[in-house]
């Protein structure tokens, strides 16, 4: 695993750099990257700290609005938009974190969900978000006043640099002493406290970091697609990022990338997949699959929770571990969530 993972990452990076020249539609790949970053930021919290936030749409969408408003109404340059989006995410994260960390477990999830719903209603009502229509036609502008981002290819490489840098930060955080303490808290908070760690502060810091990076993802999404809408702050966006992390494998670094790719592809291509199955099997019903994205999403949730809790990358890791240690069946990870983190972190 130790040797395999860097090779995989290098291959992925090469593929991403080459993608625009290989006929991939740059805007779609950029959208994928934004959601991959969002999911990776979320996973920092769920997978490595053990906190289930049900309010990450507030950071993603709130920052999407903040960046969009700055760039559209005030004519700010893209780098200011991205920085402001990150700051908005961090600030919201600080407020959410300070409130939600007062309660544990299931209450934490409910509180973050309720706070995010409040942000949703604020976004619906305040004048500068454009209400039901959202902010449309946000200009991409020129990065540092030099690079014209209205060209898709230029935008693509800027987005790639931003996402790779943010992802590197997440990897670094996970492997840092700070990240190790977070893992310790996840596995046994009482133990971490008795070792003298101020766990509330660690949790808050992780929350703010995750929110800030989610904000960066939201701001980048606005920059790439040129709009910020209510669906970015809706609770279903929080549900979506949970699903991405769950499908990919929580507590694995590469899981959110895989998971977000699966979920975004599914949302965008379900209609095509459906008509493909329909023409293959001759069952006409599959042709209408595109209209029932919600149901398919729900089904994946149920299946993942019941039978596939380690996610794609978690299963891959477990498989590699099994191959490495054929004589020691004890190394096979139990079906408990912490197992994914325990078997390795790549």
């Amino acid at each position, binding site marked *: 695993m130790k040797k395999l993972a860097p090779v995989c990452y290098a291959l992925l990076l090469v593929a991403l750099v080459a993608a625009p020249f290989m006929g991939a539609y740059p805007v779609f790949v950029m959208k994928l990257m934004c959601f991959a970053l969002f999911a990776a930021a979320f996973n920092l919290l769920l997978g490595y700290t053990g906190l289930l936030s049900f309010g990450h749409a507030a950071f993603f969408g709130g920052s999407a609005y903040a960046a969009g408003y700055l760039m559209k109404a005030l004519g700010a340059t893209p780098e200011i938009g991205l920085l402001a989006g990150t700051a908005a995410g961090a600030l919201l994260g600080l407020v959410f974190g300070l409130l939600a960390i007062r309660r544990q477990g299931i209450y934490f999830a409910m509180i973050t969900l309720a706070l995010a719903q409040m942000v949703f209603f604020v976004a619906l009502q305040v004048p500068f978000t454009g209400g039901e229509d959202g902010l449309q036609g946000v200009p991409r502008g020129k990065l540092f006043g030099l690079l014209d981002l209205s060209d898709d290819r230029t935008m693509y490489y800027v987005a790639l640099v931003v996402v790779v840098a943010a992802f590197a930060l997440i990897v670094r955080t996970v492997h840092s002493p700070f990240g190790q303490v977070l893992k310790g808290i996840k596995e046994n908070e009482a133990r971490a406290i008795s070792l003298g760690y101020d766990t509330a502060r660690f949790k808050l810091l992780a929350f703010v970091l995750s929110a800030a990076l989610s904000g960066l993802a939201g701001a980048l999404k606005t920059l790439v697609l040129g709009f910020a809408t209510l669906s970015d702050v809706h609770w279903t966006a929080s549900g979506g990022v949970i699903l991405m992390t769950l499908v990919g494998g929580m507590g694995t670094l590469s899981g959110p990338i895989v998971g977000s790719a699966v979920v975004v592809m599914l949302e965008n291509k379900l209609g095509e997949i459906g008509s493909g199955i329909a023409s293959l099997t001759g069952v006409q019903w599959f042709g209408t699959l595109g209209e029932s994205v919600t149901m398919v999403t729900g089904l994946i949730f*149920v299946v993942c929770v019941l039978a596939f809790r380690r996610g794609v990358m978690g299963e891959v890791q477990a498989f590699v571990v099994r191959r490495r240690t054929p004589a020691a069946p004890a190394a096979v990870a139990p079906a408990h969530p912490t197992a994914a983190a325990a078997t390795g972190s790549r």
Partner: protein
Amino acid sequence: MTLSLPALLSQLLLGLVNGSFYAMLSLGLAVIFGLLGVINFAHGALFMMGALFAWMGATYWNIEYWVMLIVAPLLVGAFGILIERLLLRRIYRLDPLYGLLLTLGLTLLIEGAFRSVYGVSGLGYDPPELLDGATSVGFMMLPNYRAWVVVVSLAVCLGTWFLIEKTRLGATLRAGTENPRLVEAFGINVPLMVMLTYGFGVALAAFAGVLAAPVIQVTPLMGQNLIIVVFAVVVIGGMGSILGSVLTGLGLGVIEGLTKVFYPEASSTVVFLIMVVVLLVRPAGLFGKEA
């Protein structure tokens, strides 16, 4: 500020009506959480099923409101028992967060299924003839149906409280919440009890749904926003006490109703703001025991 007393009172009554729904839903959530350790995200979707069943009964088969008030909760309760048997039972030993995720998936499935058939626009449902119209009570016209909702909801909540706190069955249930293994050792069929509790809790949600059908627009998404408000209600009240959750639900409904009169812009956020204040002042919730 010019404000007529009847207008104020009618908003107050509307607040009480909403509060009754909050009370019944948070009560069901608390009972289910107590025994199953699962926060039932699907509660809103099952509330919607109750309302939609009432509408379907009236529209397709001409079944009266009064019949559906009993039948819809029974159907949804049976559906809940199926959910518990087939799905929830498999995850009790896991982190409680998985329960939330599983029921979230169920919510998307249920709402998606109904939406693909009925769309998202509101379906009209008239109150039963017996409760149509309003009665004059001197200082205001009291809409009969709304008064009925408040009275019957309170009766159901108090009945539930009595059942759980004052009867032998309730004592067993509370013991099961406290220590299921020990209760099982006394020869009580705990899995059966858990199954029936979930069925009862969701039946309560469906009952609230039927009550709500003539007051709120019936749509496949009607439970979505409601469930999040109910979560805030649960955080504010804490899930430790039954009467506590009933009181919290009603109180918040009234506050929301009054906000609609005095500062309508905040009416959709006021419950969340109260939640923030409660978290700052008393993190365990007004009636909560757990931290």
